[in-house]
C-alpha cells in the first residue's frame, strides 16, 4: 500500500514536471470530473452519494504532451481516461483512481480546405465552436446532436455519435476521414501520409478508434468531411394514422432517394408532451444546394406521405423543435425534478421489418415496469434499411427502478433483433449486455485491446478491459 502511494506521488510529480500548472488534484476538480452526464450518476450525486473520484486531472496542450503523459502512466501502471465534453450519457468517462486526460486545451483548427471540403482539427475543439467557424465560411459539419452546445469532437468520435441531420449527412463515422491518436503505450498513431477520399491500403486501423470510448488510447486530431451550407430549405409536418404508417412512409422516402436532412416521427405520447398535439407526427427538413433537387425531393415526399395517409400538420412544429432541440433543462426544472422523478433516454435501431413490433412491445412492457411513469418515443436517423427509435423515459428517482427499467428495455430490444445502442455507446451502463449483442466478437475485440494495451491502462474498467 505504502509503495503504491509512493509511486502515485512520484507519477504526479513527473506529470507536474511536464505540465506545470495544468494538473489538478483539488477536491472540487476531482468531484466535477467524477462523472459525465449519465443520468444514474447524476441521480446519485443529487442524492448526496459520493462517486469514485479520479486521482488527478491533466490538461495537455499537444499530442506530444499526451504521449509523454501516457508514457509516465505506463511506467507507474496508473490507469487513465480521456475526457472531452463530459456530455456522454453512459458513464464512459467515470474511472475511479484514474488520471483524467482532459483534451480541451487541444482545440486548434489545423487546416481548413474549402476546395477539398475537409477540416483538420485538434480533438479538443468544442463542436459548437467548430460549427460556428465553418458557418462563418459558408460551410458546415452538419453533425448536430442534442449535446451540440457542450460536446467536443474527440468525445463524439470516441462515442460513435450521430446527429439530428444524420439522415442526409451520416453519423460521425461517415464524417471522419482520418484520426491521429496516442496509443495506450504512449506511441503516436499518426495521420496517413496522404489524405484521400478513400483508400484500399489494408484495413483501416483508425476505424476501431471510432466508438472505442477511450479504451484504445486518446484521439488527438481528426480530419473531417464538411459540406457547403445548404441554400434551399423546406420544412413540413404531417400527421399519420399511426406510428407504423409513418415508418412505412419513411421507408419509401429513403428507398426512393428523396432523403431529407431531418426526419422525426413522434408517437402520440411524445407529440403530446412536446407539441401538445396527441397525433403521430412526422417533422421533416429537406435542405439542398440546388433548388431543382429540393423541388424533386419535395414532390416525391408529398406523394409518398399521402399514399400512407399522412395529412398536413402545423409547420410551426418544426420551428418549435428547432428552437428547443438542445434544451434538456427546462422540463427537468419545471416537472421532472420537482415531482421527484428522473429521466433516461434509450436509443436503439432495427431493420424496417422489426421496427413496428419493437416499438409496440417496448412501449407496453417498459411502461408496465413498476416506477416507470412515461415512455415517449420518436423515430429519427433513417437509413435505407431501417431507423433509430429514441425512447425518453420518466420514472421514480431510484436506482432500483432504474435498473429494473433497463433490464426490461434490453430484454425487449434484444428479443426484437434491435441494438442496445444506436449512438450513445456502452460506457458503464450497457457493459453487461454487449456479449448478448455481439457474441464471440467481444472476445476478439478484447484481444485487440490486450494487444494495444497489455497493461490495461486505457479506461481500464470498461467493457473491453
Amino acid at each position: 500500500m505504502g509503495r503504491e502511494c509512493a509511486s502515485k506521488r512520484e507519477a504526479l510529480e513527473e506529470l507536474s514536471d511536464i505540465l506545470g500548472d495544468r494538473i489538478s488534484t483539488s477536491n472540487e476538480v476531482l468531484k466535477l470530473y467524477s462523472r459525465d452526464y449519465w443520468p444514474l450518476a447524476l441521480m446519485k450525486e443529487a442524492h448526496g452519494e459520493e462517486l469514485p473520484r479520479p486521482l488527478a486531472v491533466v490538461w495537455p496542450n499537444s499530442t506530444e504532451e499526451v504521449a509523454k503523459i501516457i508514457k509516465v502512466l505506463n511506467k507507474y501502471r496508473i490507469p487513465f481516461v480521456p475526457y472531452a465534453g463530459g456530455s456522454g450519457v453512459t458513464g464512459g468517462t467515470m474511472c475511479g483512481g484514474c488520471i483524467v486526460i482532459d483534451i480541451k486545451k487541444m482545440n486548434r483548427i489545423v487546416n481548413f480546405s474549402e476546395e477539398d471540403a475537409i477540416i483538420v482539427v485538434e480533438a479538443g475543439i468544442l463542436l459548437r465552436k467548430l460549427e460556428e467557424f465553418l458557418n462563418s465560411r459558408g460551410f458546415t459539419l452538419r453533425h448536430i446532436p442534442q449535446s451540440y452546445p457542450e460536446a467536443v469532437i474527440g468525445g463524439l468520435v470516441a462515442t460513435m455519435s450521430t446527429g439530428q441531420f444524420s439522415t442526409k449527412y451520416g453519423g460521425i463515422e461517415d464524417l471522419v476521414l482520418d484520426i491521429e491518436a496516442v496509443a495506450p503505450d504512449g506511441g503516436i498513431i499518426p495521420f496517413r501520409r496522404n489524405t484521400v477520399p478513400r483508400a484500399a491500403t489494408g484495413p483501416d486501423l483508425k476505424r476501431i478508434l471510432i466508438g472505442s470510448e477511450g479504451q484504445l488510447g486518446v484521439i488527438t486530431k481528426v480530419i473531417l468531411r464538411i459540406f457547403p451550407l445548404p441554400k434551399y430549405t423546406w420544412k413540413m409536418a404531417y400527421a399519420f394514422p399511426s406510428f407504423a404508417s409513418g415508418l412505412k412512409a419513411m421507408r419509401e422516402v429513403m428507398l426512393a432517394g428523396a432523403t431529407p436532412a431531418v426526419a422525426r416521427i413522434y408517437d402520440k405520447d411524445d407529440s403530446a408532451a412536446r407539441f401538445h398535439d396527441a397525433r403521430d407526427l412526422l417533422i421533416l427538413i429537406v435542405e439542398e444546394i440546388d433548388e431543382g433537387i429540393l423541388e424533386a425531393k419535395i414532390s416525391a415526399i408529398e406523394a409518398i406521405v399521402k399514399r400512407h395517409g399522412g395529412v398536413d400538420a402545423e409547420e410551426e412544429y418544426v420551428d418549435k423543435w428547432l428552437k428547443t432541440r438542445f434544451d434538456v433543462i427546462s422540463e427537468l426544472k419545471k416537472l421532472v425534478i420537482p415531482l421527484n422523478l428522473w429521466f433516461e433516454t434509450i436509443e436503439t435501431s432495427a431493420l424496417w421489418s422489426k421496427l413496428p413490433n419493437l416499438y409496440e412491445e417496448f412501449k407496453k412492457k417498459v411502461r408496465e415496469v413498476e416506477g416507470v411513469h412515461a415512455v415517449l418515443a420518436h423515430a429519427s436517423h433513417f437509413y435505407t434499411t431501417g431507423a433509430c427509435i429514441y425512447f425518453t423515459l420518466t420514472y421514480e428517482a431510484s436506482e432500483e427502478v432504474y435498473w429494473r427499467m433497463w433490464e426490461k428495455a434490453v430484454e425487449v430490444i434484444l428479443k426484437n433483433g434491435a441494438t442496445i445502442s444506436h449512438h450513445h455507446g456502452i460506457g458503464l451502463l450497457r457493459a453487461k449486455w454487449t456479449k448478448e449483442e455481439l457474441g464471440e466478437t467481444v472476445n476478439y475485440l478484447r484481444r485487440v485491446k490486450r494487444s494495444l494495451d497489455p497493461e490495461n491502462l486505457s479506461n481500464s474498467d470498461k467493457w473491453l478491459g
Partner: protein
Amino acid sequence: MARVILLVSLTMLRAVKITPKLVVRFAFLPFRKVRNPCLYCPGICIASCPTYLSSGNILLSPIGYARFHDIAREKCLKCWRCVQECPLGYNLPETYSKPVKISLRIVRPGRLILVADEEIDLQLAEHLSESLGTGLAVVKGVAERYNNGSPIEYKTLKKAKRVLSGAELAVACSPEVSHALGIDFLGIHLKDLGIKLNYEGPIHIPCLLKSQREKLLKSLEDAGVRPTFVDEEECIKLSIKENYLYLCPIAKKHGVRTIFDLISY
C-alpha cells in the same frame, strides 16, 4: 392548482402513467422549486464561458461556479454570457454574493442624462457630459455587483430608476451600468448624442451587451466606425488585444483604445 394546470396540459398528461402518489406530488408541484438548475444541466451555456474556453477546466465553468461559490467569486468574470445562453435565463452570477445596495444621485440635471458608476467611469463621464452639454448622474454599487456577482437589492434599484425617470433619455457610459439599471448603453445612441467616430479596424463587443450586437453595430457604423472584424468571444477581464477598439470604459485601465478616446463632437 391553477398553476399546475398551466405547467401540465391535459394533452401532455395522456403520456403519463398516473399513480395516487404522483397525483399528490402534482398537487404540491407549485411549492416545489428547483433553486439551482445548473446542478442538473449538462452545460448548455458552457461554450460561452471565457474562463472555461481558455482553461478547458469544468471547475472554471458555470457548472463549477454553480457548485463552488468561493471559487466563482474569485474566478468567474461575471460577464453574464452564461445567463444570455441559458434557456431558463438563470441568473447564475447573482447567486455568488449577498445583494448589493445601489444609490444614484443626479450631479447635473438635463433632458438627456449620462449615467456613470463612481468606480468604473466617473471621470470619463464627467468630461463627456461637459463636452456634450448633457446631464450627469452617478451611481454607486454597480462595480461591486460585477466584481463579486451579486443581485441588486430591489428597493434600491427601483429608487434609482425613479430618480432617472425625470430625464427624457438616460444612457449608461458603461456596459455594467446599462446592464445593471436596464438602460441603453451610450454606444447605441451615438447619433442622438451627436457623436462621430472615425475608425477602421477590429472591434470588440462587450460581453454584457452581446444580445444587442446588431443594434450596437448599426449605431457604430452610422457614427463612422468601419469594423474589419467583430470579436464576440473574448472577455476584456481575461484577455486584451492591443489593436482592437473597445467599448468598455474599463479597457482604458489596460492602456488600449476605447470609443471614448475617438469621440469628436
